[in-house]
């Protein structure tokens, strides 16, 4: 993680699954409410009572950026966000399958790839979250996603125990 850059730090224990972040994100993308275009997606895992917004980690490897055949993805210098340059992107979809986090999307309307660009250092989802489950701070995202994964995993294992 490049120092002094901020990431979207998620607090799954605060998330209620309301999807206000999806509404805000899609609003920023389209000027309408269209969650199918949101670049942040809320996972609602009821059985484990675990909810969390989920979006690009702005990972070091930048699989999407590396896979792009036309360099339509670049690193924004101020934020270290990996951003899609719309008029360069041809829409081949390679980034979508290269990203092992599932946070690259393809928009059928514009035929271009879309990803979280941290709203140029002022993420709208952070504004919209009513419970401060999304914060924009200096932090390593490995922490929250690991703990969240463990919780979801444990929920399943516990419940399996009950079935035996």
């Amino acid at each position: 993680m490049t120092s002094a850059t901020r990431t979207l730090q998620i607090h799954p224990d605060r998330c209620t699954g309301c999807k206000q972040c999806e509404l805000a994100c899609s609003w920023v993308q389209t000027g309408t409410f269209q969650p199918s275009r949101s670049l942040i997606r809320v996972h609602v895992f009821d059985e484990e009572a675990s909810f969390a917004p989920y979006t690009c980690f702005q990972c070091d490897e930048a699989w999407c950026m590396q896979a792009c055949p036309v360099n339509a993805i670049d690193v924004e210098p101020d934020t270290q966000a990996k951003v899609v340059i719309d008029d360069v992107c041809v829409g081949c979809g390679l980034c979508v399958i290269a990203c092992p986090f599932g946070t690259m999307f393809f928009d059928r309307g514009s035929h271009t790839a879309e990803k979280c660009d941290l709203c140029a250092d002022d993420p709208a989802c952070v504004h919209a979250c009513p419970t401060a489950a999304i914060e924009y701070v200096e932090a390593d995202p490995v922490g929250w996603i690991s703990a969240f994964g463990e919780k979801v995993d444990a929920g399943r294992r516990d419940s399996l125990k009950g079935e035996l």
Partner: protein
Amino acid sequence: MTRHVILGGGPAGIHAVETIRQLDTEADVTLVCDEAPCARMVLPYHLAGTIAPGTLFTTDDAWALEHQVALEIGCRAHRIDAAAHRIELDDGRSLDYDRLLVATGSSPARPPIEGLDSPRVVDMWTVADAGTFLEQDPKDVVIVGAGFIGLVILDALIKRGCRVRFLEIASVILPRMLDANAAGLISAHLANKGIEILTGEALSQIEDTGSGCRLTLAGGDTLDCDLVVMATGIHANRGFLEGAGIATDAGILVDDHLRTTDPAIFAAGDVAEGPDLLTGGHAVHAIQPTAIDHGRIAGANMAGLDAAYSGSLAMNVLHTQALESCSFGRWSPEGMESTGLSNPGAGIHRQYIWEDDRLVGGSLVGPTAAVSGANDAGMLKGLVQTGISLGTWKDYLKDHPLDLRRVYVASGAPKALLSSNLLTGRASTGGGYRFPPRPPKRPRSTHHAVLVTR
């Protein structure tokens, strides 16, 4: 000062150049390429006319200047004198190297059929091929070969207003990307859109009629069209290696540092047979993501870094008339345990291929909202790529094939992925082979201001 020679200006070569340059600002770097380096994945969009021609090319003088690369464009390697560390070019010149990268890629493989020399019969492999096609501006096209290369240009041709028919010798389409069920679903979808796919049909002859082409099939039937696109496969460009003493099999054999059996020679991309992530053996994966991985790993090692490659993963993504498909790793369930769901009526297919409790492959077919508009394509890749043991989650995914997200999060794959990267802990930097000046800073959307103002 180390002399690096890179043969081939495809993605493997370009990424190698850039990686070398990032690690060693002093080295001497020469790139040899028979045509101006371009991005082959972009050809369909060039055909469709939806992009600026400049987008095709991946280098220019400014790039060469910025990266201090000597560009040798318009020539090919003719022979390697491995003992002398010298490469002879087809224009009679020769270059000495300390480290050589063979990234010469592949070329279309043409079947032995009469009439292929007609100008109305084109491959779709180079910018020049596309130029030949665009000059003739055909309205009725037969594509010979319904594999990835043939199908990837379909949308572009439809957009140009072409009638498109496919001729495929095998009984199914996309045999190297999807299993028969999934492929059948795409065939049916295309048939519904009025696109003919003639499978199980061998081509015996092509005749230039002066105004078009007449194709004669093995059974005697004929097809008339304006132009034929040959898309019957590719073969690696490695003829010039004969006698160089480098071990080859399906491609040039390389170790996990992308080094051939000659320690001064590396190979990358379509021409290389490198580590296979899934099997631990070797494989040729002639795809863009592998070429890039290869180029970066080879470049890093050529520049003196000790970067080991865990192996390449086959993957493909295809848009065919609003139906999307993608596959990762093992695409064929033959002899494997596979689970998933299939709903041909809705154009929906999901397949997970297992080895014990690990995903070793899978595929998704469906509308955008089900494939690349969801998190699932990438997550499937992440699970195959990490090869993480899913334990009891395997049973869950069998029962709930749509609920990949939960399995992915619980698997710990994101943690594993965030904690590793290709070049031994070095973060990727932007820039790449981008042409200066760099694109402007991405502005905030105008809707953003409306939302956040209180």
